């Protein structure tokens, strides 16, 4: 006779669920408000979203380290907490970018903001669990919302981008499901901590290795799609180009941070178990990603596409840190993204500011290099800020990305991969060329003239957001220490 399961509220430990719940309820609230009173201005929704994100942030602050909840499905370890912070901060930087001086279609719909909050809840689910099914649910929630957000930009190439991303995402979801199934078949569990235990005991069994490797390769393909690693990166530049500039910047950070957390849980597990082929595959993918994306970025004619390829290259850089399997390497992933976030979002925001409704400079591209020619003479401040972001991305000290690069390279050297550190150095040198190319256009060329203003969309909120990004980029040397010690503490506390 089956006994009814009795669960007390205490056991559920709902506090672990609070951050996601706040985002979901906030999203529903925005839709409800729209039911009651329509035609509210976008600034209302932006501020509502911002406030909900603040509460979400507060709830994340209140989480206790290494806590489990909701039938032990949710797992709040150090990397879950840091990544939720990163996701929330990036979202808070992103959402005010909707307040442009010109009207853009998507931001007048409350659905945009509701979907945005659902997406954040999805990402939060994804990072705060070690259950493969919940990871899948979180990933799909977030991705589906993101597809719609891209398509809402209401241009033909936005639809193209959304459909492209959707089909690629569906394929990745398939790979993820098959990989999880294979893990379940070999271990009988979908909880990663249990999987690790069982695999650890059964590693010597003959024939099992093929199944383990098969599962890991399928999962790796799924995440290579999500992290846009070579050779599964081809969708990324088109999708970034089709999406609005701030959303493209957002996509180069938040989904990747979430995917890196999961990758760290899954592949970190394989690497810790001593399954060397997985490490080698990850390393090879990482090296190819950073090198080839860099070379592709060299020949781009559009700044946004260049930044898309550069984001791919940065992801490869960080992926290499994951393969090291050391605490320092894992901590450097988060340090890198925490510092990269401000610079990259800032750079995309600068493109957003210069976005015209119609393509005024080039038939094919929104942001060809020529558009920025002689910017120093037209908009000196804008040119200096953009140059700052480019130098930071190139890894020139003392700007923020340099500290991330330094730490990633240092962890590679510590783990005995000096060749990897040298490759990273050479890649940074290649990357410097295309970042410099934009600086050369802005500072050393004459303006092309005829088209009136480059800074078309500038508004006060955008200036504030860019100001924050500049401040974080320039003053990174002062907060690198607390950031580093906090991240290292959190990562080592959760055993990575």
């Amino acid at each position, binding site marked *: 006779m089956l006994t009814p399961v009795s669960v007390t509220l205490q056991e559920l430990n709902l506090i672990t669920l609070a951050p996601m719940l706040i985002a979901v309820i906030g999203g529903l609230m925005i839709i409800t408000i729209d039911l009651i009173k329509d035609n509210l201005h976008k600034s209302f929704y932006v501020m509502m979203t911002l406030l909900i994100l603040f509460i979400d942030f507060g709830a994340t602050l209140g989480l206790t380290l290494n806590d489990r909840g909701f039938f032990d499905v949710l797992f709040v370890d150090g990397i879950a907490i840091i990544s939720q912070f990163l996701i929330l901060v990036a979202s808070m930087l992103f959402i005010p970018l909707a307040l442009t001086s010109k009207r853009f279609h998507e931001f007048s719909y409350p659905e945009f903001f509701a979907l945005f909050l659902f997406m954040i809840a999805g990402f939060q689910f994804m990072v705060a669990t070690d259950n493969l099914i919940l990871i899948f649910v979180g990933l799909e929630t977030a991705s589906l919302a993101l597809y719609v957000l891209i398509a809402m930009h209401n241009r033909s190439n936005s639809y193209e981008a959304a459909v492209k991303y959707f089909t690629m995402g569906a394929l990745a979801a398939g790979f993820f499901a098959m990989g999880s199934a294979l893990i379940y078949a070999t271990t009988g569990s979908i909880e990663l901590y249990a999987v690790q235990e069982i695999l650890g005991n059964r590693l010597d069994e003959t024939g099992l290795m093929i199944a383990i490797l098969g599962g890991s390769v399928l999962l790796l393909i799924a995440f290579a799609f999500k992290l846009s690693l070579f050779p599964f990166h081809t969708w990324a530049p088109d999708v970034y180009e089709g999406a609005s500039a701030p959303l493209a910047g957002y996509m180069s950070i938040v989904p990747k941070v979430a995917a890196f957390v999961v990758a760290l849980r899954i592949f970190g597990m394989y690497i810790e178990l001593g399954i060397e082929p997985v490490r080698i595959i990850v390393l090879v993918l990482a090296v190819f990603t950073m090198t080839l994306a860099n070379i592709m970025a060299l020949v781009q004619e559009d700044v946004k596409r260049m930044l898309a390829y550069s984001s791919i290259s940065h992801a490869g850089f960080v992926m290499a840190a994951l393969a090291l399997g050391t605490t320092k390497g894992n901590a450097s992933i988060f340090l890198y993204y925490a510092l990269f976030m401000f610079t990259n979002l800032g750079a995309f925001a600068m493109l957003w500011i210069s976005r015209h409704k119609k393509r005024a400079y080039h038939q094919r591209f929104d942001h060809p290099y020529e558009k920025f020619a002689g910017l120093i003479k037209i908009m000196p401040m804008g040119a200096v800020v953009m140059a700052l972001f480019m*130098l930071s991305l*190139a*890894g*020139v*000290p*003392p700007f923020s990305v340099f*500290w991330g690069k*330094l*730490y990633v*390279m*240092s962890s590679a*050297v*510590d783990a005995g991969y*000096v060749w990897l*550190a*040298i490759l990273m*150095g*050479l890649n*940074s*040198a290649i990357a*410097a*060329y295309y970042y*410099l190319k934009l*600086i*050369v256009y802005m*500072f*050393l060329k004459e303006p092309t003239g005829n088209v009136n203003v480059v800074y078309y969309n500038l508004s006060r909120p955008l200036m504030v957001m860019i100001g924050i990004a500049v401040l974080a980029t320039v003053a990174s*040397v*002062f907060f*690198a*220490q607390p950031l*580093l*010690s906090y991240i*290292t503490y959190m990562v080592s506390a959760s055993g990575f």
Partner: protein
Amino acid sequence: MDNILSILIFFPAIAGLLGFIVHKQSARAYGISVAAIEFLLSLWLWISFDSTNGAMQFVELIPIIPDFGINYYVGVDGISLFLVVLTTLMTLIGIVSMSIKSEVKNMVVTLLFLEMTMVGVFVALDVIVFYLFWELSLVPMLYIIGAWGGPLRVYASIKFFLYTFAGSLIMLVGILFMAYEYHSEMQVWSFALTDWYQMGWFGLDKQLWLFGAFFIGFAIKVPMFPFHTWLPYAHGQAPTIGSVILAAVLLKMGTYGFVRFSLPLFPDASVMMIMPIAILSLIMIIYTAMVAYAQEDIKQVIAYSSISHMGIIMLGIFAMNSHGISGAIFQMIAHGIVSGALFMLVGMIYDRRHTKLMSEFGGLASVMPKFALIFGVMLMASVGLPLTIGFVGEFLVLLGFYKISPIITILAGTSIIVGAVYMLSLYKKTFFGPITNDANKSLKDLDSRETWSLIPLVIIVAWLGIYPKPVLGPIDTSVSAMLEFMEEKASMQNTKDMILTTQQAKEGN
């Protein structure tokens, strides 16, 4: 004022930031005033410097990222003191003599930022802080060459940036590996150079690899022979002020790096690499001197002669005795002043005629006597005529390297002859004979601004050529301290034998 070094570093930077507000018309005066204050501050540093002490002075230490061992750590010794003074002097004189008409304000602000990074490189004692200023110095120079340069300026500036950037990233890997070695031995992270000096030695092969990593970073900057191709482009396209700073100070960063990092950190590897580096230096000295002779452009002649002189400096550094190294450091100062002055002179004639080709000139001595006189003095100093500043360094270097290899020393000594050949033929083609080109007949001689920016340099050339002791003394004290330390630290007997401290040199004589 114990924190004078921080003031020296950050004063130009803050002045640069404030310079954005200064009105365009006053920008030049502002630049001159700031550079003059900075120069006076550096003189104050020299006066309060204790020249009997070979160790680091005016040390400051503020933690930046203590978890990773990165501190704001600066200090100055006899080796870096004069490079700091040279930096502030050449920046001041560069701004005074600057003939740029367009966007003077941007140029002044850029120069002030550049000054910060240059001073920072010479006084940094934390390797990451050093690296920070080292990389940062590329950005203003990129802008100076790219914005005010000749027709190929964009190509030249990008080549300059990428070449140096790539080299220093390899050096960064070396730095990180060194820090890792330090961490595995001491269990704490530290990037402080003085901590690294104290570190016991690990295997020779690691030392050689690390030497190689640092070598690539520094050699590109110097520039050593196979890596020198960026320099003629940079000089050829840069505006006068850019060439002056580049030749006088930026190149010295590379040779300074060898003295500050390569020798004391890797004594065994350095001694092992004496011969390969001596041969590269020799190629630099003789080959580029010959290339200089083949040039038709006055500026290119001086650019190639710069490379040739940097070869002499490299040779002196790897002489591993106090004559050689002190001579090399003195030669850095001498070359800074002389090549800076020569580039300024070329700039002055270029402003008048908008050409730098020797074939366009001839007989200038009769229309521009002052110009010809000062050019002649600087040329003699560049060739290394006794009683000029160029002689002291070159002589000491050759004297020092004689103990290593007489043959190489003799070959390197021919550089003085080849140098005299190309320099005098340049002088002959440009200044002597009848005026063949009518455009030269109406040339004006130097005006008072140009004259007064050159006279201090002429005075220094003569003063330090006759009485080099005030500069050579502190340099020698610090170099002797460094050599003793290197000998103590070296792990192989062979190395100890090669490194001659001052004490032994005296006994030997």
